[in-house]
């Protein structure tokens, strides 16, 4: 059980982590501030108003050290939700552990590192797709050799669904991404059984109970079949689809927020019945703000009640054999296969991204969904039916704008105290390596050790890789 958290400065988030660990949480999950996600320093023009708002603000290794202060990295497992600059944050994590005296092979955790779904749905890319893929395969290769207990890519359908896709689209597009990573890693010369067991998935749990649980079942089947038949995987762990599930943020309503507790419970139940390995239950106030402590606690309790009181987790695939569940699973599998065929026709995932195939499919599905609600063809309790108009009195957690100032001061201090000549030299080496085809992880780790900021590392890579613009799709 792990809950997504991160806000304000590294020191503030560190406090929250300690609170969560004391309340029985077994792993940590890091959400990053948007400027970190896009590789801008806290004092960049684009970071205005964003510092610490959606997650913890990280500029340099110093912030990472503070984030895990007094937390033994060899004892916990950490999940980091970061994509475009994932290699840099992973490098910072490894170096932080190094400074705690732990060797990388002791580290356990997951880094999202799934850039394809960024182009498809979430939009936080930096470089063009091909260059982004190189960085991902660099991290897969590096971890396979040095951080063997680390989950290298969390192939995510969550955001595809949040962007408005249907359940089948989430299933198909996510697995297509997964196969694209497998193919790219094999092209690099890696053995499928060496890296496949460290790939994991991250799905959404939306409202339609049976559709959701059949989605997970279909995903497991498709993955196992293809890994074995198409990619020649032999280890059972390579065929096994491991997945984390988060309940659908988009299903939460701002009206009567307490109803969200019930929604989350049903969604979590579907995920557990569908065989999820781990679960994040959303806090009921998330449609309004970053979750408050009370709401976070209720969400955690929801999981604990499903796991410990309901008994649903005691049996593997308890709904197997039900005529409805089996036929729905089959149908979803077939529909996903039809999508794979279309994607292949377009030349694969990256060409399909460039042709805006996914983006168009999702935009249409999401507009249709909204229209159904407007026309009352789809009922959302408290929103278009059974409304009760009352003022919302949920207390909200606020991030004050002081955070930005504090973070910028920290950054300036680092800039003053580090060896700037050394930073420059290491960045130059990284640049030269990026122009070639070497694995960039060791070079990134060298820049991180000198307290180069994410902004500086990303700018250096941009000089070589360029950036990417998407066409407008509605």
């Amino acid at each position, binding site marked *: 059980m792990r809950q997504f958290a991160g806000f304000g400065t590294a020191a503030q988030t560190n406090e929250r982590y300690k609170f969560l660990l004391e309340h029985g949480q077994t792993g940590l999950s890091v959400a990053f501030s948007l400027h970190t996600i896009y590789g801008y320093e806290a004092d960049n023009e684009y970071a205005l108003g964003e510092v610490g708002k959606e997650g913890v603000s990280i500029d340099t290794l110093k912030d990472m050290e503070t984030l895990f202060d007094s937390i033994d990295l060899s004892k916990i497992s950490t999940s980091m939700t970061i994509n475009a600059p994932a290699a840099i944050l992973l490098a910072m994590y490894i170096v932080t552990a190094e400074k705690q005296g732990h060797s990388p092979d002791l580290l356990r955790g997951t880094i999202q590192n799934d850039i394809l779904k960024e182009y498809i749905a979430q939009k936080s890319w930096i470089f063009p797709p091909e260059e982004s893929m190189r960085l991902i395969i660099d991290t897969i290769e590096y971890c396979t050799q040095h951080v063997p207990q680390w989950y290298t890519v969390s192939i995510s359908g969550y955001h595809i669904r949040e962007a408005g896709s249907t359940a089948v689209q989430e299933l198909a597009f996510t697995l297509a991404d997964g196969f694209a990573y497998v193919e790219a890693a094999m092209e690099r010369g890696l053995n499928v059984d060496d890296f496949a067991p460290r790939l994991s998935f991250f799905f959404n749990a939306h409202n339609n109970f049976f559709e959701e649980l059949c989605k997970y079942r279909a995903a497991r089947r498709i993955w196992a079949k293809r890994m074995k038949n198409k990619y020649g995987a032999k280890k059972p762990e390579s065929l096994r689809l491991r997945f984390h599930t988060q309940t659908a943020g988009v299903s939460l309503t701002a009206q009567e927020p307490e109803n969200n507790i019930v929604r989350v419970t049903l969604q979590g139940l579907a995920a557990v019945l569908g065989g999820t390995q781990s679960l994040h239950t959303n806090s009921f106030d998330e449609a309004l703000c970053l979750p408050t402590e009370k709401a976070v606690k209720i969400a955690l309790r929801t999981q604990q009640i499903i796991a410990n009181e309901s008994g649903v987790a005691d049996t593997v695939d308890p709904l197997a054999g039900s005529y409805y569940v089996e036929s729905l699973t089959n149908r979803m599998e077939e529909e996903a296969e039809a999508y794979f065929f279309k994607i292949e026709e377009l030349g694969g995932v990256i060409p399909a991204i460039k*042709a*805006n195939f996914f983006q168009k499919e999702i935009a249409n599905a999401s507009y249709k969904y909204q229209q159904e609600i407007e026309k009352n063809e789809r009922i959302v309790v408290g929103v278009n039916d059974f409304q009760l108009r009352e003022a919302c009195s949920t207390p909200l957690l606020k991030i004050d704008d002081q955070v930005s100032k504090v973070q910028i001061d920290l950054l300036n201090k680092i800039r003053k105290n580090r060896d700037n000549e050394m930073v420059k030299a290491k960045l130059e080496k990284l640049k030269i390596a990026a122009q070639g085809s070497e694995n960039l992880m060791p070079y990134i780790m060298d820049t991180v050790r000198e307290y180069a900021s994410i902004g500086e590392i990303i700018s250096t890579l941009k000089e070589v890789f360029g950036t990417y*613009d*998407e*066409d*407008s799709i*509605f």
Partner: protein
Amino acid sequence: MGFEALIDRLLKGDTRAAARLITIAENDIGAAEEIINSIYKHTGKAYILGITGAPGSGKSTLISTLTNIFVKEGKKVGIICVDPTSPLTGGALLGDRIRMKKHFTTDNVFIRSMANRGQLGGLARATEDAIKILDVYGCDIVIIETVGVGQSEVDIFRPAQSVLVLLVPGMGDDIQAIKAGIMEITDIFVVNKMDLPGADRKVSDITQMLELSMSFKYDYENLNQDHAIVHKWTPKIVKLNSKTGENFDNLLEIINEHKAFLKETGVIENYRLNRIKNETLQILKHKLTRKVEGLIHSNPQIDEYIRLVMDKSMDPYSMANLIIKLLGIE
């Protein structure tokens, strides 16, 4: 309502005045008339470039890269992106700005999105007015972007001095569209995304077509003139990549070549003459249509004619002739 104050500001290069005048021209043809009436004598300085192509051919990216080059040369650039209005709702989604690089400052690049508001042909009624306003505003170059998908979207050649048509490797439909009408209006074919497989194939497809039918854009422009000397421009083909800027030198060279051709051969004069004729025709159509519509709904004489047609004692053609008489333009 007078627009003197706004026009004064426009003449001084005020951006907001330019923007507001375009809005007014879009919303009200009467006002457009007044505006053009007072600024017309100041027009004629801008070079007008038309760019068209199927959705996804990379028009906005190409314009963005071209504009960057023009701006570096110290030029002021106006861009008008015309998109279709939904015939069902009258609304429109205008998304071209997304791909325009945002490091343009307001001082040297003016981008305006425009819905065609149901006008056929690819342009909006007020596009020509907007071009003139941007010309007077001080743009050295005005780029017009339209979605060219078929034979009917060819109006871009009316205001534009050079017309670029964008194609991408792989898409087979565009060749059909070219055969159906785009061919005749094109000065420069641009094969974008030259790194994709099939780029050379596309170039040879176009070359083949060009051999079969020479551009008759310039024949057409001389149609009604006795003893006109027909100067032929053979459409050129450029392969490039608008994202990386590869081969843009080549494109610029050809644009300049075409500009020089227009000037040296005197075709530019024909071109102006035809542009004025065409524009006048458009304005007349618009005005007459409005007048006739007004008449049909309000004139008792016409009600009388309609009853006669209903009784079969008159036919619609005869009624139309009588209405023309009423208008006094027989």
